[in-house]
């Protein structure tokens, strides 16, 4: 087991915001079982803000902690702010990740951004 920070262990043992929001406004999926990690983020948007965010994660301790942390960081942020969440920030918020687990932090932010992109694409369609 890699040397995980206390923060990682906290999010791993008590992951926040598990699940899928009902009738999501945006859905983002990344990864696949071959790599060992898979995440699905669903968001509810209201007034350009992320009102609700949930995720499903198949993955290691780091992947689960990253999902949980990203969901907490995103909730309540404007879409622009949420788009600016970087992998580095996620890892930092978690008190760091072991070198060989850094790729997990990428997945979390990527999945969130994909969900936002999905929402924006749909918005455009309905607005257009």
């Amino acid at each position: 087991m890699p040397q995980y920070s206390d923060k990682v262990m906290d999010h791993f043992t008590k992951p926040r915001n598990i699940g899928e929001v009902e009738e999501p406004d945006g859905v983002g999926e990344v990864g696949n079982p071959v790599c060992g990690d898979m995440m699905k983020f669903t968001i509810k948007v209201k007034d350009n803000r992320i009102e609700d965010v949930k995720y499903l994660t198949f993955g290691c301790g780091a992947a689960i902690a990253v999902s949980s942390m990203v969901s907490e960081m995103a909730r309540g942020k404007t879409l622009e702010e949420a788009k600016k969440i970087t992998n580095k920030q996620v890892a930092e918020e978690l008190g760091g990740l072991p070198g060989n687990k850094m790729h997990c932090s990428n997945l979390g932010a990527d999945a969130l951004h994909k969900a936002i992109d999905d929402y924006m694409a749909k918005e455009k369609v309905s607005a257009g």
Partner: protein
Amino acid sequence: MIVRCQVREGLISMKDINLDYAAAAPLDKKVLEKMMPFFTEHYGNPSSGHILGEKPKAAIEEAREAVADLINAEAKNVIFTASASEANNLVIKGLVKAGKRKGNHLIASSIEHFSVLNQLKTLKKEGYRVTLLPVDKFGMINPKDLEAAIDDQTILISIQTANSEIGTIQPIAELSALARERNIPFHTDAAAAAGWIELDVEKMGVDLLTLAGDQFYGPKGSAALYVKRGIRLMPQIEGGIQEKGLRAGTENVPAIVGLGEAAKIAKDTNSERTGKLAAIRDQLKESLFKAVPNLHLNGHPEKRLPHNLNLSVEFVEGEALLMRLQIAGIYVSSGSSCTSQALKSSHVLSAIGRPPELAQGSLQLTLGPNSSAEDIPYITGQLSEIAALLRNMSPLYHQYLKEEKTNASV
């Protein structure tokens, strides 16, 4: 760090259940006792020209007899090494370098240990041809595949006796017969098997056999290689003429003595020891399959090491399982890429055709000296709970549930 965090969070478990004895087992106290005098009292060098070397020398020869006994070999055909990896490297590099048999082709199974596979990779780069035999869904090699692979350039066949991960035991005698007919040296890596199942180099028909003491309650740093008379190897650690000139270096007397003692105990108590663990293993398996849906057995249902159980917990990933189980005081290992230092999922599980999601969710459970049937309900309860919890957050599981629903409503 993890310990601190567990304590603070009140997460530390009162349980302490090792289900990963294949990774490491405590040294048998009787073995350690036998080793002790050789650290500080009979500390001499067995090659010494004086009396201080005599007890150590006699002790390593006694150990050689014991190891030979365990595999029905002659002591003079057994040499000591510091690890199974070293023995395997001596076999392959040593045989290729000796170049007694002309040819450029080597055969092994696709589920060998990396101490075999990685050498073959290197040899391939150097221009040798390598055939890795496929295995069936239980991890078994088909002798027909071996027969088809052999050609007149084949200089070595190396096939493990048993797989440490999925426990599958190969039909070595049948396989080696094909080599013998053609006079091709046959090596078996019995590191996972020795001490657990009966080994007999005559019945198995092998020319070379690797075993390791730490796999059956002997000391770390102790291993041996059986080399049949007439097989020529070039030493890979050159220097002094210890171990018949096949392996230089001052003999690690305590380790060798420990290996000998472990071999004696394994020989004497083999059926009792293994019978007990096989019974617990079978109960554990039954209990887990009853309690946890979508569980898959990896490896052969019968032809497997008595202390080994390997399962795939569908829809979840191994490291997460491993971490949760650890918090519950249960220690296991996994074939998941996230738990491997090389970040690759098990080549063994992929060879038996497990799709990635099942390989990622594999748990290798191996029993050992403190294993007890009493722990089965606790283990079962924990794994059941943890599997449910992780599945609840798994996109693969949710997808599966949706498909189930669709199927049901159709």
